[in-house]
Protein backbone atom coordinates (compact mmCIF):
# COMPACT_ATOMS: atom_id res chain seq x y z
CA UNK A 1 0.00 0.00 0.00
CA UNK A 2 1.18 3.46 -0.79
CA UNK A 3 0.23 5.31 2.35
CA UNK A 4 1.09 4.21 5.83
CA UNK A 5 1.50 7.64 7.25
CA UNK A 6 0.36 6.82 10.77
CA UNK A 7 2.64 3.85 11.08
CA UNK A 8 5.77 5.94 10.90
CA UNK A 9 6.93 9.06 12.63
CA UNK A 10 6.35 11.50 9.85
CA UNK A 11 7.90 14.34 11.68
CA UNK A 12 11.13 12.66 12.61
CA UNK A 13 12.89 14.67 9.96
CA UNK A 14 11.48 17.91 11.33
CA UNK A 15 12.39 17.20 14.92
CA UNK A 16 15.83 15.91 14.17
CA UNK A 17 16.58 18.84 11.94
CA UNK A 18 15.45 21.27 14.60
CA UNK A 19 18.15 19.98 16.92
CA UNK A 20 20.82 20.98 14.52
CA UNK A 21 22.88 23.64 16.20
CA UNK A 22 23.87 25.60 13.13
CA UNK A 23 20.51 27.15 12.85
CA UNK A 24 20.63 28.65 16.32
CA UNK A 25 23.88 30.44 15.74
CA UNK A 26 22.73 31.58 12.35
CA UNK A 27 19.78 33.33 13.90
CA UNK A 28 21.95 34.79 16.61
CA UNK A 29 24.37 36.12 14.06
CA UNK A 30 21.65 37.82 12.18
CA UNK A 31 19.95 39.29 15.19
CA UNK A 32 22.72 40.53 17.38
CA UNK A 33 26.14 40.17 15.83
CA UNK A 34 27.71 42.15 18.66
CA UNK A 35 26.74 39.57 21.25
CA UNK A 36 29.13 37.04 19.81
CA UNK A 37 32.37 36.98 21.74
CA UNK A 38 34.46 35.73 18.84
CA UNK A 39 35.18 38.23 16.12
CA UNK A 40 32.44 37.58 13.63
CA UNK A 41 33.41 36.78 10.07
CA UNK A 42 32.29 39.23 7.44
CA UNK A 43 28.56 38.69 7.44
CA UNK A 44 27.87 36.51 4.46
CA UNK A 45 24.32 37.68 4.22
CA UNK A 46 25.29 41.25 3.59
CA UNK A 47 25.92 40.40 -0.02
CA UNK A 48 22.30 39.40 -0.35
CA UNK A 49 19.38 41.69 -0.92
CA UNK A 50 17.89 41.22 2.51
CA UNK A 51 17.80 38.96 5.56
CA UNK A 52 14.87 36.90 4.34
CA UNK A 53 16.59 35.34 1.38
CA UNK A 54 19.34 33.06 2.63
CA UNK A 55 17.11 30.26 3.81
CA UNK A 56 14.26 28.38 2.27
CA UNK A 57 12.40 28.03 5.56
CA UNK A 58 11.81 31.76 5.89
CA UNK A 59 8.93 33.75 4.46
CA UNK A 60 9.60 37.38 3.66
CA UNK A 61 7.15 39.86 5.22
CA UNK A 62 5.40 39.92 1.85
CA UNK A 63 4.88 36.15 1.99
CA UNK A 64 7.50 35.42 -0.65
CA UNK A 65 10.17 32.73 -0.68
CA UNK A 66 13.32 34.30 -1.99
CA UNK A 67 15.31 31.07 -2.14
CA UNK A 68 12.69 29.64 -4.44
CA UNK A 69 12.78 32.71 -6.60
CA UNK A 70 16.56 32.44 -6.85
CA UNK A 71 16.19 28.82 -7.88
CA UNK A 72 13.98 30.02 -10.71
CA UNK A 73 16.86 32.28 -11.69
CA UNK A 74 19.12 29.23 -11.89
CA UNK A 75 16.80 27.88 -14.55
CA UNK A 76 17.34 31.05 -16.54
CA UNK A 77 21.09 30.52 -16.42
CA UNK A 78 20.62 27.47 -18.61
CA UNK A 79 20.31 27.69 -22.36
CA UNK A 80 16.80 27.87 -23.72
CA UNK A 81 14.41 25.06 -24.48
CA UNK A 82 11.15 25.36 -26.38
CA UNK A 83 8.19 22.99 -26.46
CA UNK A 84 5.01 22.97 -28.50
CA UNK A 85 2.32 20.56 -29.47
CA UNK A 86 -0.28 19.87 -32.10
CA UNK A 87 -3.21 17.46 -32.05
CA UNK A 88 -0.87 14.68 -33.16
CA UNK A 89 2.65 15.59 -32.07
CA UNK A 90 4.57 17.22 -29.27
CA UNK A 91 8.07 18.50 -29.91
CA UNK A 92 10.96 19.90 -27.90
CA UNK A 93 13.74 22.08 -29.23
CA UNK A 94 16.77 23.07 -27.24
CA UNK A 95 19.90 25.10 -27.66
CA UNK A 96 23.07 23.26 -26.65
CA UNK A 97 26.06 25.10 -25.27
CA UNK A 98 29.66 24.15 -25.66
CA UNK A 99 32.50 25.30 -23.43
CA UNK A 100 34.94 25.63 -26.33
CA UNK A 101 35.91 24.45 -29.73
CA UNK A 102 37.54 21.30 -28.36
CA UNK A 103 34.59 20.45 -26.15
CA UNK A 104 31.45 18.57 -26.99
CA UNK A 105 28.02 20.13 -26.70
CA UNK A 106 25.95 19.64 -23.55
CA UNK A 107 23.06 17.23 -23.29
CA UNK A 108 19.71 19.00 -23.18
CA UNK A 109 17.25 16.17 -23.67
CA UNK A 110 16.60 12.95 -21.80
CA UNK A 111 14.36 10.04 -22.70
CA UNK A 112 12.25 8.91 -19.75
CA UNK A 113 10.20 6.15 -21.32
CA UNK A 114 8.92 5.25 -24.77
CA UNK A 115 6.14 7.77 -24.37
CA UNK A 116 7.87 10.55 -22.39
CA UNK A 117 10.88 12.78 -22.95
CA UNK A 118 12.18 15.98 -21.37
CA UNK A 119 14.28 19.01 -22.15
CA UNK A 120 16.14 20.70 -19.32
CA UNK A 121 17.38 24.15 -18.40
CA UNK A 122 19.44 24.86 -15.30
CA UNK A 123 21.56 22.58 -13.16
CA UNK A 124 22.20 19.45 -15.21
CA UNK A 125 23.07 17.37 -12.16
CA UNK A 126 19.72 18.16 -10.55
CA UNK A 127 18.11 17.18 -13.82
CA UNK A 128 19.82 13.80 -13.71
CA UNK A 129 18.49 13.12 -10.23
CA UNK A 130 14.95 14.09 -11.18
CA UNK A 131 14.96 12.34 -14.53
CA UNK A 132 16.21 9.18 -12.89
CA UNK A 133 13.30 9.42 -10.48
CA UNK A 134 10.93 9.90 -13.41
CA UNK A 135 12.32 6.79 -15.08
CA UNK A 136 11.73 4.81 -11.91
CA UNK A 137 8.15 6.06 -11.74
CA UNK A 138 7.62 5.14 -15.37
CA UNK A 139 9.00 1.64 -14.84
CA UNK A 140 6.98 1.21 -11.67
CA UNK A 141 3.79 1.94 -13.60
CA UNK A 142 4.68 -0.62 -16.24
CA UNK A 143 5.50 -3.13 -13.51
CA UNK A 144 2.38 -2.76 -11.34
CA UNK A 145 -0.24 -1.96 -13.96
CA UNK A 146 1.37 -2.96 -17.24
CA UNK A 147 0.56 0.55 -18.38
CA UNK A 148 2.65 3.54 -19.48
CA UNK A 149 2.45 6.11 -16.71
CA UNK A 150 -0.01 8.94 -17.47
CA UNK A 151 2.14 11.96 -18.33
CA UNK A 152 0.33 14.41 -16.06
CA UNK A 153 0.82 12.16 -13.05
CA UNK A 154 4.50 11.69 -13.82
CA UNK A 155 5.01 15.46 -13.86
CA UNK A 156 3.01 15.84 -10.66
CA UNK A 157 5.25 13.40 -8.82
CA UNK A 158 8.38 15.43 -9.45
CA UNK A 159 6.51 18.66 -8.68
CA UNK A 160 5.49 17.22 -5.31
CA UNK A 161 9.09 16.12 -4.74
CA UNK A 162 10.33 19.62 -5.52
CA UNK A 163 7.82 21.22 -3.13
CA UNK A 164 9.43 19.51 -0.14
CA UNK A 165 12.74 21.15 -1.02
CA UNK A 166 11.11 24.56 -0.70
CA UNK A 167 9.93 23.94 2.84
CA UNK A 168 12.52 22.09 4.88
CA UNK A 169 15.76 23.37 6.35
CA UNK A 170 19.00 21.87 5.10
CA UNK A 171 17.72 21.49 1.58
CA UNK A 172 17.71 23.75 -1.41
CA UNK A 173 15.11 23.93 -4.13
CA UNK A 174 16.05 22.11 -7.31
CA UNK A 175 17.85 24.39 -9.73
CA UNK A 176 16.43 23.01 -12.91
CA UNK A 177 13.31 23.44 -15.02
CA UNK A 178 11.86 20.79 -17.34
CA UNK A 179 9.77 20.78 -20.41
CA UNK A 180 8.07 17.41 -20.53
CA UNK A 181 6.40 16.00 -23.62
CA UNK A 182 4.53 12.75 -23.66
CA UNK A 183 1.58 10.93 -25.08
CA UNK A 184 -1.07 8.70 -23.60
CA UNK A 185 -4.60 7.78 -24.56
CA UNK A 186 -5.63 11.41 -24.10
CA UNK A 187 -3.19 12.45 -26.83
CA UNK A 188 0.10 14.36 -26.89
CA UNK A 189 0.88 16.72 -24.01
CA UNK A 190 3.39 19.40 -23.03
CA UNK A 191 4.14 20.35 -19.44
CA UNK A 192 6.47 22.73 -17.70
CA UNK A 193 7.96 21.75 -14.38
CA UNK A 194 9.69 24.37 -12.25
CA UNK A 195 11.70 24.32 -8.99
CA UNK A 196 8.88 26.03 -7.09
CA UNK A 197 7.11 22.67 -7.17
CA UNK A 198 4.53 23.59 -9.75
CA UNK A 199 3.67 22.06 -13.09
CA UNK A 200 1.46 23.45 -15.81
CA UNK A 201 0.16 22.13 -19.08
CA UNK A 202 0.76 24.38 -22.08
CA UNK A 203 0.06 24.52 -25.79
CA UNK A 204 3.56 25.94 -26.18
CA UNK A 205 6.17 27.27 -23.76
CA UNK A 206 9.84 28.04 -23.35
CA UNK A 207 12.29 28.05 -20.46
CA UNK A 208 15.91 29.08 -19.95
CA UNK A 209 18.00 32.07 -20.96
CA UNK A 210 16.10 34.69 -22.93
CA UNK A 211 13.09 32.41 -23.06
CA UNK A 212 10.81 35.45 -22.93
CA UNK A 213 11.70 36.20 -26.53
CA UNK A 214 10.71 32.70 -27.57
CA UNK A 215 7.52 33.03 -25.54
CA UNK A 216 6.65 36.19 -27.39
CA UNK A 217 7.01 34.35 -30.69
CA UNK A 218 4.92 31.43 -29.42
CA UNK A 219 2.15 33.69 -28.14
CA UNK A 220 1.93 35.25 -31.56
CA UNK A 221 1.56 31.93 -33.36
CA UNK A 222 0.23 29.33 -30.93
CA UNK A 223 -3.29 29.30 -32.32
CA UNK A 224 -2.04 27.66 -35.52
CA UNK A 225 -0.11 24.91 -33.72
CA UNK A 226 -3.04 22.59 -33.00
CA UNK A 227 -3.57 21.72 -36.67
CA UNK A 228 0.08 21.95 -37.74
CA UNK A 229 1.89 18.98 -39.22
CA UNK A 230 5.19 17.86 -37.74
CA UNK A 231 7.36 19.91 -40.12
CA UNK A 232 5.47 23.13 -39.43
CA UNK A 233 5.54 22.47 -35.71
CA UNK A 234 9.31 22.01 -35.75
CA UNK A 235 9.76 25.08 -37.94
CA UNK A 236 7.75 27.19 -35.47
CA UNK A 237 9.85 25.70 -32.66
CA UNK A 238 13.08 26.59 -34.44
CA UNK A 239 11.85 30.12 -35.08
CA UNK A 240 11.01 30.49 -31.40
CA UNK A 241 14.33 29.02 -30.31
CA UNK A 242 16.18 31.35 -32.67
CA UNK A 243 14.73 34.30 -30.74
CA UNK A 244 16.75 33.27 -27.69
CA UNK A 245 20.09 33.44 -29.50
CA UNK A 246 22.61 36.12 -28.88
CA UNK A 247 23.19 38.41 -31.82
CA UNK A 248 25.55 37.00 -34.47
CA UNK A 249 24.75 33.42 -33.38
CA UNK A 250 22.59 31.00 -35.32
CA UNK A 251 21.09 27.55 -35.00
CA UNK A 252 23.28 24.80 -36.43
CA UNK A 253 23.16 21.04 -36.54
CA UNK A 254 25.67 21.07 -33.67
CA UNK A 255 23.97 23.38 -31.21
CA UNK A 256 20.37 22.26 -31.69
CA UNK A 257 18.47 19.26 -30.35
CA UNK A 258 14.99 18.24 -31.42
CA UNK A 259 12.81 15.84 -29.44
CA UNK A 260 9.65 14.41 -30.99
CA UNK A 261 6.67 12.39 -29.91
CA UNK A 262 4.05 11.28 -32.41
CA UNK A 263 3.77 9.51 -35.76
CA UNK A 264 6.69 9.37 -38.22
CA UNK A 265 7.31 12.49 -40.27
CA UNK A 266 8.29 12.47 -43.95
CA UNK A 267 11.94 13.24 -43.13
CA UNK A 268 12.25 10.46 -40.58
CA UNK A 269 13.49 6.98 -41.42
CA UNK A 270 12.85 4.65 -38.50
CA UNK A 271 10.15 5.44 -35.98
CA UNK A 272 8.21 2.93 -33.90
CA UNK A 273 4.57 2.42 -34.72
CA UNK A 274 3.47 4.18 -31.53
CA UNK A 275 5.56 7.23 -32.38
CA UNK A 276 7.87 6.86 -29.40
CA UNK A 277 10.03 9.68 -28.11
CA UNK A 278 13.15 10.26 -30.21
CA UNK A 279 15.92 12.82 -30.09
CA UNK A 280 17.31 14.21 -33.32
CA UNK A 281 20.81 15.65 -33.28
CA UNK A 282 23.46 16.38 -35.87
CA UNK A 283 22.89 15.61 -39.55
CA UNK A 284 19.23 14.53 -39.30
CA UNK A 285 18.12 18.00 -38.20
CA UNK A 286 19.72 19.74 -41.15
CA UNK A 287 16.60 19.22 -43.24
CA UNK A 288 14.54 21.04 -40.60
CA UNK A 289 17.00 23.90 -40.22
CA UNK A 290 16.79 24.45 -43.95
CA UNK A 291 13.03 25.01 -43.75
CA UNK A 292 13.52 28.06 -41.53
CA UNK A 293 12.56 31.42 -42.95
CA UNK A 294 14.82 34.40 -42.57
CA UNK A 295 13.95 36.70 -39.72
CA UNK A 296 11.53 39.41 -40.82
CA UNK A 297 13.14 42.59 -39.52
CA UNK A 298 16.01 41.89 -37.17
CA UNK A 299 16.53 45.56 -36.38
CA UNK A 300 12.91 46.30 -35.57
CA UNK A 301 12.60 43.67 -32.87
CA UNK A 302 15.16 44.77 -30.34
CA UNK A 303 16.43 41.85 -28.26
CA UNK A 304 15.31 42.17 -24.64
CA UNK A 305 17.86 42.54 -21.84
CA UNK A 306 19.72 39.34 -21.08
CA UNK A 307 18.44 38.85 -17.58
CA UNK A 308 16.08 40.24 -15.00
CA UNK A 309 13.13 41.12 -17.15
CA UNK A 310 11.01 38.13 -16.46
CA UNK A 311 8.39 37.28 -13.93
CA UNK A 312 10.51 35.86 -11.17
CA UNK A 313 7.83 35.06 -8.69
CA UNK A 314 6.82 31.76 -7.30
CA UNK A 315 3.51 31.15 -8.96
CA UNK A 316 0.73 31.62 -6.50
Amino acid at each position, binding site marked *: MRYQSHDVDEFAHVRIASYWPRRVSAVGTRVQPSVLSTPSPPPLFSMFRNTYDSDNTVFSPQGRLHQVEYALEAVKQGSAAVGLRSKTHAVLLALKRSTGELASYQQKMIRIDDHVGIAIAGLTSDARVLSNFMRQQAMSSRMTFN*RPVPVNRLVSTIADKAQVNTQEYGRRPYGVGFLVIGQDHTGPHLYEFSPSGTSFEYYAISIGARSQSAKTYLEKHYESFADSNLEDLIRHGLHALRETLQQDKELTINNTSIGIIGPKGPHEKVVSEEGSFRILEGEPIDVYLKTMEAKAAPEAAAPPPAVGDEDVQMAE
Partner: protein
Amino acid sequence: MDHFPTNWGRPNYNTFDAHATYPLHVHPQPSSSADGVQHTQQPIVTGTSVLALKYKDGIMLAADNLASYGSLARFKGVQRLQAVGDYTIIGASGDMADFQYLQYILDNLIISEEINPQDGHKLGPSEVHEYLSQLLYARRSRMNPLWNSVLVGGFRDGQRFLAYVDLLGTTYKASTLATGYGAYIAQPLLRKAVEGKEDTLTEDEARKIMEDCLRVLFYRDARSINQYQIATISAAGASISGSLKLETSWGFAEGIRGYGGQTQ
Protein backbone atom coordinates in the same frame (compact mmCIF):
# COMPACT_ATOMS: atom_id res chain seq x y z
CA MET B 1 4.25 -29.25 31.92
CA ASP B 2 4.89 -27.08 34.92
CA HIS B 3 4.98 -29.40 37.97
CA PHE B 4 4.76 -26.65 40.59
CA PRO B 5 1.12 -26.34 41.60
CA THR B 6 1.73 -22.83 42.93
CA ASN B 7 2.43 -21.68 39.43
CA TRP B 8 -0.76 -23.13 38.01
CA GLY B 9 -3.10 -20.49 36.73
CA ARG B 10 -0.50 -17.75 37.06
CA PRO B 11 1.25 -15.87 34.31
CA ASN B 12 4.39 -17.54 33.04
CA TYR B 13 7.64 -16.00 34.17
CA ASN B 14 8.73 -15.86 30.59
CA THR B 15 5.95 -13.48 29.71
CA PHE B 16 5.32 -11.60 32.98
CA ASP B 17 7.89 -9.99 35.24
CA ALA B 18 6.02 -10.66 38.51
CA HIS B 19 8.75 -9.33 40.77
CA ALA B 20 9.66 -6.33 38.69
CA THR B 21 13.23 -7.49 38.29
CA TYR B 22 13.73 -5.57 35.07
CA PRO B 23 16.39 -4.38 34.21
CA LEU B 24 18.17 -7.32 35.82
CA HIS B 25 19.70 -9.63 33.32
CA VAL B 26 16.67 -11.87 32.98
CA HIS B 27 13.59 -10.09 31.82
CA PRO B 28 10.61 -11.06 29.73
CA GLN B 29 11.19 -11.49 26.07
CA PRO B 30 8.33 -10.83 23.78
CA SER B 31 7.97 -13.76 21.46
CA SER B 32 10.08 -12.86 18.52
CA SER B 33 10.62 -14.11 15.06
CA ALA B 34 13.67 -15.93 16.38
CA ASP B 35 11.24 -18.65 17.42
CA GLY B 36 10.00 -18.86 13.85
CA VAL B 37 6.96 -17.26 12.36
CA GLN B 38 4.02 -19.23 11.12
CA HIS B 39 1.93 -17.75 8.35
CA THR B 40 -1.32 -18.95 6.84
CA GLN B 41 -1.25 -22.71 6.28
CA GLN B 42 -4.78 -23.14 4.99
CA PRO B 43 -7.86 -21.10 4.19
CA ILE B 44 -10.50 -20.98 6.94
CA VAL B 45 -13.82 -19.63 5.72
CA THR B 46 -13.93 -20.51 2.04
CA GLY B 47 -15.89 -19.87 -1.11
CA THR B 48 -15.95 -22.53 -3.80
CA SER B 49 -15.81 -22.30 -7.60
CA VAL B 50 -16.08 -19.18 -9.72
CA LEU B 51 -16.96 -19.57 -13.40
CA ALA B 52 -16.42 -17.15 -16.27
CA LEU B 53 -16.80 -17.16 -20.01
CA LYS B 54 -16.54 -14.92 -23.04
CA TYR B 55 -19.71 -14.31 -25.00
CA LYS B 56 -20.71 -12.09 -27.89
CA ASP B 57 -21.10 -8.85 -25.93
CA GLY B 58 -18.53 -9.27 -23.17
CA ILE B 59 -17.70 -11.42 -20.18
CA MET B 60 -20.02 -13.33 -17.87
CA LEU B 61 -19.03 -14.51 -14.39
CA ALA B 62 -20.90 -16.66 -11.92
CA ALA B 63 -20.39 -17.75 -8.32
CA ASP B 64 -22.62 -19.16 -5.60
CA ASN B 65 -23.38 -17.39 -2.32
CA LEU B 66 -21.89 -19.84 0.14
CA ALA B 67 -18.97 -19.34 2.50
CA SER B 68 -18.09 -22.64 4.18
CA TYR B 69 -16.30 -23.21 7.47
CA GLY B 70 -14.67 -26.51 6.72
CA SER B 71 -17.57 -28.71 5.65
CA LEU B 72 -20.09 -26.54 7.51
CA ALA B 73 -22.27 -24.35 5.28
CA ARG B 74 -21.55 -21.37 7.53
CA PHE B 75 -22.67 -18.24 5.61
CA LYS B 76 -25.31 -18.55 2.91
CA GLY B 77 -25.61 -15.00 1.64
CA VAL B 78 -22.07 -14.06 0.68
CA GLN B 79 -21.37 -12.12 -2.51
CA ARG B 80 -18.20 -13.30 -4.24
CA LEU B 81 -18.41 -11.11 -7.32
CA GLN B 82 -17.28 -7.51 -7.14
CA ALA B 83 -17.04 -4.63 -9.59
CA VAL B 84 -13.68 -2.80 -9.63
CA GLY B 85 -13.93 0.57 -11.34
CA ASP B 86 -16.05 0.97 -14.45
CA TYR B 87 -14.65 -1.79 -16.64
CA THR B 88 -13.89 -4.78 -14.43
CA ILE B 89 -15.59 -7.46 -12.35
CA ILE B 90 -13.66 -9.92 -10.23
CA GLY B 91 -14.84 -13.18 -8.69
CA ALA B 92 -12.98 -14.93 -5.89
CA SER B 93 -12.84 -18.38 -4.45
CA GLY B 94 -10.73 -19.43 -1.48
CA ASP B 95 -10.43 -17.60 1.84
CA MET B 96 -13.25 -15.10 2.21
CA ALA B 97 -11.42 -13.01 4.81
CA ASP B 98 -8.55 -12.61 2.37
CA PHE B 99 -11.07 -11.72 -0.34
CA GLN B 100 -12.55 -9.02 1.88
CA TYR B 101 -9.03 -7.67 2.35
CA LEU B 102 -8.55 -7.70 -1.43
CA GLN B 103 -11.77 -5.74 -1.82
CA TYR B 104 -10.47 -3.15 0.63
CA ILE B 105 -7.18 -2.90 -1.24
CA LEU B 106 -8.94 -2.52 -4.58
CA ASP B 107 -11.33 0.11 -3.18
CA ASN B 108 -8.31 2.13 -2.05
CA LEU B 109 -6.75 1.58 -5.45
CA ILE B 110 -9.79 2.99 -7.23
CA ILE B 111 -9.81 6.02 -4.92
CA SER B 112 -6.13 6.78 -5.44
CA GLU B 113 -6.04 5.98 -9.16
CA GLU B 114 -9.43 7.28 -10.32
CA ILE B 115 -11.38 9.28 -7.72
CA ASN B 116 -8.45 11.46 -6.64
CA PRO B 117 -6.85 12.44 -9.96
CA GLN B 118 -10.08 12.61 -12.02
CA ASP B 119 -7.90 12.90 -15.11
CA GLY B 120 -9.56 10.27 -17.28
CA HIS B 121 -6.84 7.67 -16.77
CA LYS B 122 -9.04 4.90 -15.45
CA LEU B 123 -8.01 1.36 -14.66
CA GLY B 124 -9.08 -1.25 -17.17
CA PRO B 125 -9.30 -5.00 -16.54
CA SER B 126 -5.75 -5.67 -17.70
CA GLU B 127 -4.40 -3.10 -15.24
CA VAL B 128 -6.46 -4.56 -12.39
CA HIS B 129 -5.31 -8.07 -13.30
CA GLU B 130 -1.66 -7.03 -13.47
CA TYR B 131 -1.95 -5.28 -10.12
CA LEU B 132 -3.59 -8.29 -8.49
CA SER B 133 -1.01 -10.68 -9.88
CA GLN B 134 1.83 -8.50 -8.60
CA LEU B 135 0.15 -8.29 -5.20
CA LEU B 136 -0.53 -12.01 -4.89
CA TYR B 137 2.92 -12.94 -6.15
CA ALA B 138 4.59 -10.55 -3.71
CA ARG B 139 2.60 -12.05 -0.86
CA ARG B 140 3.47 -15.59 -1.78
CA SER B 141 7.13 -14.60 -2.14
CA ARG B 142 7.01 -13.42 1.46
CA MET B 143 5.60 -16.86 2.34
CA ASN B 144 2.35 -15.19 3.44
CA PRO B 145 -0.10 -15.69 0.61
CA LEU B 146 -3.59 -14.32 0.21
CA TRP B 147 -5.43 -17.61 -0.20
CA ASN B 148 -7.56 -16.94 -3.23
CA SER B 149 -8.08 -17.84 -6.84
CA VAL B 150 -9.44 -14.82 -8.65
CA LEU B 151 -11.06 -14.45 -12.05
CA VAL B 152 -10.81 -11.01 -13.61
CA GLY B 153 -13.34 -10.22 -16.32
CA GLY B 154 -13.65 -6.94 -18.11
CA PHE B 155 -14.64 -4.97 -21.15
CA ARG B 156 -12.99 -1.81 -22.36
CA ASP B 157 -12.58 -0.03 -25.69
CA GLY B 158 -14.50 -2.83 -27.42
CA GLN B 159 -12.12 -5.50 -26.07
CA ARG B 160 -13.10 -8.40 -23.85
CA PHE B 161 -10.67 -9.44 -21.13
CA LEU B 162 -10.73 -12.61 -19.08
CA ALA B 163 -7.85 -13.87 -16.94
CA TYR B 164 -7.01 -15.91 -13.87
CA VAL B 165 -4.66 -15.25 -10.97
CA ASP B 166 -4.17 -17.26 -7.81
CA LEU B 167 -2.42 -17.29 -4.46
CA LEU B 168 0.87 -18.28 -6.12
CA GLY B 169 0.75 -15.42 -8.58
CA THR B 170 0.07 -17.82 -11.44
CA THR B 171 -1.78 -16.18 -14.30
CA TYR B 172 -3.37 -17.32 -17.52
CA LYS B 173 -6.02 -16.30 -19.98
CA ALA B 174 -8.66 -18.35 -21.76
CA SER B 175 -12.12 -17.87 -23.19
CA THR B 176 -13.57 -19.97 -20.38
CA LEU B 177 -12.19 -20.12 -16.86
CA ALA B 178 -13.15 -21.82 -13.63
CA THR B 179 -11.58 -21.90 -10.17
CA GLY B 180 -11.57 -24.54 -7.47
CA TYR B 181 -13.66 -27.65 -7.95
CA GLY B 182 -15.17 -25.97 -10.99
CA ALA B 183 -11.82 -26.29 -12.74
CA TYR B 184 -12.41 -30.07 -12.79
CA ILE B 185 -16.18 -30.26 -13.11
CA ALA B 186 -17.31 -27.16 -14.98
CA GLN B 187 -14.35 -26.22 -17.15
CA PRO B 188 -14.76 -29.15 -19.60
CA LEU B 189 -18.46 -28.33 -19.94
CA LEU B 190 -17.69 -24.64 -20.46
CA ARG B 191 -15.07 -25.36 -23.09
CA LYS B 192 -17.43 -27.63 -24.99
CA ALA B 193 -20.18 -25.04 -24.90
CA VAL B 194 -18.15 -21.89 -25.56
CA GLU B 195 -14.91 -22.48 -27.47
CA GLY B 196 -15.25 -21.37 -31.06
CA LYS B 197 -18.55 -19.63 -30.31
CA GLU B 198 -17.23 -16.70 -28.28
CA ASP B 199 -18.36 -14.21 -30.90
CA THR B 200 -21.82 -15.62 -31.47
CA LEU B 201 -23.07 -16.69 -28.03
CA THR B 202 -25.87 -14.42 -26.85
CA GLU B 203 -26.23 -13.33 -23.25
CA ASP B 204 -29.22 -15.65 -22.78
CA GLU B 205 -27.30 -18.61 -24.16
CA ALA B 206 -24.33 -17.78 -21.96
CA ARG B 207 -26.58 -17.54 -18.95
CA LYS B 208 -28.03 -20.95 -19.74
CA ILE B 209 -24.53 -22.45 -19.95
CA MET B 210 -23.63 -20.93 -16.60
CA GLU B 211 -26.76 -22.27 -14.95
CA ASP B 212 -26.12 -25.75 -16.28
CA CYS B 213 -22.56 -25.70 -14.97
CA LEU B 214 -23.63 -24.35 -11.58
CA ARG B 215 -26.28 -27.05 -11.37
CA VAL B 216 -23.76 -29.78 -12.05
CA LEU B 217 -21.45 -28.24 -9.48
CA PHE B 218 -24.25 -28.13 -6.93
CA TYR B 219 -24.90 -31.82 -7.47
CA ARG B 220 -21.23 -32.76 -7.28
CA ASP B 221 -19.50 -30.19 -5.04
CA ALA B 222 -20.28 -30.64 -1.36
CA ARG B 223 -19.10 -27.05 -0.64
CA SER B 224 -21.60 -25.45 -2.98
CA ILE B 225 -25.13 -24.10 -2.57
CA ASN B 226 -28.05 -23.58 -4.93
CA GLN B 227 -28.03 -19.79 -4.60
CA TYR B 228 -25.83 -17.86 -6.96
CA GLN B 229 -25.19 -14.59 -8.74
CA ILE B 230 -24.33 -13.87 -12.35
CA ALA B 231 -22.41 -10.80 -13.46
CA THR B 232 -21.93 -9.37 -16.93
CA ILE B 233 -19.48 -6.78 -18.11
CA SER B 234 -19.97 -5.36 -21.60
CA ALA B 235 -20.20 -2.10 -23.48
CA ALA B 236 -23.25 -1.38 -21.32
CA GLY B 237 -21.06 -1.52 -18.20
CA ALA B 238 -20.94 -3.84 -15.23
CA SER B 239 -23.99 -5.47 -13.76
CA ILE B 240 -24.27 -8.04 -10.98
CA SER B 241 -27.56 -9.86 -10.50
CA GLY B 242 -29.26 -10.35 -7.18
CA SER B 243 -29.18 -13.75 -5.53
CA LEU B 244 -30.82 -16.37 -7.76
CA LYS B 245 -32.03 -19.86 -6.97
CA LEU B 246 -31.00 -22.92 -8.95
CA GLU B 247 -33.78 -25.20 -10.14
CA THR B 248 -32.76 -28.72 -9.20
CA SER B 249 -34.55 -32.03 -9.16
CA TRP B 250 -33.86 -34.77 -6.69
CA GLY B 251 -36.44 -37.29 -7.85
CA PHE B 252 -33.70 -39.62 -8.97
CA ALA B 253 -32.45 -39.90 -5.40
CA GLU B 254 -35.23 -42.31 -4.53
CA GLY B 255 -33.89 -44.77 -7.01
CA ILE B 256 -30.39 -44.78 -5.65
CA ARG B 257 -29.46 -47.91 -3.82
CA GLY B 258 -26.32 -48.94 -2.04
CA TYR B 259 -25.52 -45.81 -0.02
CA GLY B 260 -26.36 -44.67 3.49
CA GLY B 261 -29.19 -46.05 5.53
CA GLN B 262 -31.35 -47.70 2.86
CA THR B 263 -31.88 -51.34 3.53
CA GLN B 264 -33.32 -52.29 0.16
